[in-house]
């Protein structure tokens, strides 16, 4: 018998869900985590005074940054660990990070002992993994997924003498840094390749999540495509996945059925490429150079060169000069790299990519210079104005020429 009480609870829950919708947002790209009062930061200040402070292009030290001494005892190698969301051979995101690990090992030789943990689920297991890695003597720990952020905030408070390096997040603290880079620069170049490749002017994008990072990338891609093919349209399908080859392939096939004749995908799997290969359509990938595997359909892709950031960071930790901050690399410092360009891309388009690449290397994010209109034709960026870094980080609209929806706020 369903009692009135249960019905009341259900009604309460449904009403609660509907009424309590809240929205809001902030402009700042990073947020400083308040130090918890019950943790006493035990810092050795002696090497701080002696060593010169850490600097790196595109690295902004946090306000009031102090040197965190995560160096090993003199003469001993530093132990550095990486926590990966995927397998090291995923052909994309995690593999690119693993290249960073290898570069650190190669650059520092016997001064460093590297280790890694792959396929670590976000949530409680990440905290446990940090505990294990610290117990094993690792003093600098990297992690390559947004979902580890809170575990890293917790770990940084718990282990004040360990240097924490989280990627793609926004929370920083005394011993917790953030790093990522302008993937949108590379996606603009992929857009040029796709714009040059399409015959009917219809390009399809298999898109991971409707979040600012991805939206910014799709907009950059669309601006790139329309810079060489002003009437091109970019149709998007959201998969809400980073790595789900079966679903991503279906999404790609749905776009092909809708009549697009060039594809791009920003997930970590080459599933869209598989679908494009069957249909013989051009494909722009993401995070990995798939030219050798898909020679006939390959356009190009954005590649992240984590070594550009990680090698100097581990070196700084080794020398007792590590400070927390926020890094945003780009084409200029080599953090963002363009993959090899496929043979089906015309010489004319290759030249246009090279020209745009040089322009963006000098001024990252400058494709977001007005006049830029939104999907509905309203002006989003005024003529001659370039969107600020903060505005780009919070971008939540699609530009003109994109067919598809964003979740309503």
């Amino acid at each position, binding site marked *: 018998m369903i009692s009135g009480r249960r019905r009341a609870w259900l009604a309460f*829950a449904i009403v609660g869900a509907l009424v*309590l919708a*809240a929205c809001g947002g*902030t402009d700042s790209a990073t947020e400083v985590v308040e130090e918890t009062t019950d943790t006493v930061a035990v810092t050795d200040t002696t090497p701080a005074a002696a060593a010169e402070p850490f600097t790196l292009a595109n690295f902004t030290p946090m306000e009031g940054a102090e040197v965190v001494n995560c160096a090993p005892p003199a003469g001993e190698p530093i132990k550095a660990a990486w926590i990966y969301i995927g397998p090291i051979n995923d052909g994309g995101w995690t593999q690119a990070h693993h290249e960073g690990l290898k570069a650190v090992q190669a650059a520092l030789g016997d001064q460093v002992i590297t280790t890694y*943990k792959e*396929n670590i689920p976000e949530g*409680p297991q990440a905290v*446990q993994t940090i505990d294990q890695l610290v117990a094993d003597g690792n003093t600098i720990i990297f992690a390559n997924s*947004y979902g580890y952020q809170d575990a890293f905030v917790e770990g940084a408070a718990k282990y004040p003498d360990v240097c924490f390096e989280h990627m793609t*997040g926004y929370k920083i603290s005394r011993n917790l840094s953030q790093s990522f880079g302008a993937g949108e620069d590379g996606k603009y170049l992929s857009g040029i390749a796709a714009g040059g490749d399409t015959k009917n002017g219809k390009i399809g994008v298999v898109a991971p999540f409707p979040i600012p990072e991805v939206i910014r990338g799709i907009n950059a891609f669309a601006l790139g495509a329309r810079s060489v093919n002003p009437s091109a349209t970019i149709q998007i399908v959201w998969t809400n996945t980073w790595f789900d080859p079966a679903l991503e392939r279906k999404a790609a096939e749905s776009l092909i059925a809708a009549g697009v004749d060039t594809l791009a995908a920003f997930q970590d799997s080459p599933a869209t490429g598989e679908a494009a290969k069957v249909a013989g359509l051009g494909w722009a990938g993401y995070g990995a150079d798939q030219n050798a595997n898909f020679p006939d359909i390959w356009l190009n892709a954005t590649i992240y060169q984590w070594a550009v950031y990680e090698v100097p960071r581990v070196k700084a930790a080794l020398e007792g000069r590590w400070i927390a901050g926020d890094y945003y690399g780009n084409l200029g410092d080599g953090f963002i790299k363009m993959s090899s360009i496929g043979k089906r891309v015309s010489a004319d388009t290759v030249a246009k990519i090279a020209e745009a690449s040089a322009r963006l290397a000098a001024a990252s994010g400058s494709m977001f210079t007005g006049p830029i209109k939104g999907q509905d034709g309203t002006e989003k960026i005024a003529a001659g104005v370039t969107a600020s870094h903060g505005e780009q980080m919070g971008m939540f609209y699609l530009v003109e020429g994109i067919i598809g929806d964003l979740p309503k706020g």
Partner: protein
Amino acid sequence: MRSPLRLERRLSQPRSLRWLVPLISIGAALVLGSILMLLTGKNPITVFQRIVESGFGSKTALRGSLIAATPLAFTGMCAAITFRVGIINIGGEGQFFVGAIGASLVGLALGGQPTAFTIFAMIVMGMLFGGAYAALVGVLKARFHTNEIITSLMLNYLAGILLNYLIFNSTSYWRDPRSIGFPAGKPLEARAWWPKFELFGVQIPLGFLIAIVLGSLVLFLYRRTRFGFEVGVIADSPQAARYAGMNTRWKIIAVVTLSGAIAGIGGASDVGDFRHILDAKGLQLAGYGYTGIVVAALARFSPLAAVGVAVVIGGLTNAGYALQGPDFQSGLVGTLQGLLLFTAVAGEVLTRYRIRLRRTTTAS
């Protein structure tokens, strides 16, 4: 040609099998695992030593194993409760999600209230949400004879889509408005986090203690009450039960609702004990509901034993992460864990069936 071997159901289970089969299973697992280790150039003895050490060998190891075990204890119980009476509710996954949604709703809303009150409200909401979601399966089965395997499985996907909607595709109450980079759940206030208890220096999550209490209560319900007796009769013979005047429909709905309510409390524990947010992506990747079915099978569908098996599987999971690294690929860890589970389940089959040689002379 027919196989010369066949499985024959045992009419009675010899007592000796109860301890002999698990022993042989463990032995077989060790032998098969050792072969795998030797083939990949590892020393099996050190590997098994490391598994025991990093799963159960220290206080931090045990703490980690209990963290991994807690959600599995709930989903294991959820599956055990229904499977033992012949209802195949594989919806623990979705019921767990929905419980987490309900618990985080009230946890966020009551964040400023006294901790004990907030925790109690979270448990109740997890229970109600999980129970109500499972009740759908029960009602469909009891009233329309819909196959509960299909409906509970479909509702898992639906719950996953609901999670995605709440965190990724809307600015719902659950979503943190400050999560500009990547959408995430709104964090629970620290005072609403569930407390941890210490026993012999090992940290125990509140959720794990709740699981033990619930397991005992359910065992009592099944063994010592009229309700339990009637459910048992319905499982064995629905016709006989109806003939005896039992209300089979309501019993089916009640059992499925109970199992969902327990999975829902597991969802509440996930939010209160561990994540402190509604973690749409993490929950879906974890697959607690499906692992819970394995836990229930190994526990022979005893709700209390499911809690114990959850600790073993939790320890094995935790040890797996400690074990893997540059010298031990995660795929190898997974293969080893799979071997151990496979032999355990295979052994379980042998306690109920026996292998007989077919007479080959019948061939014409």
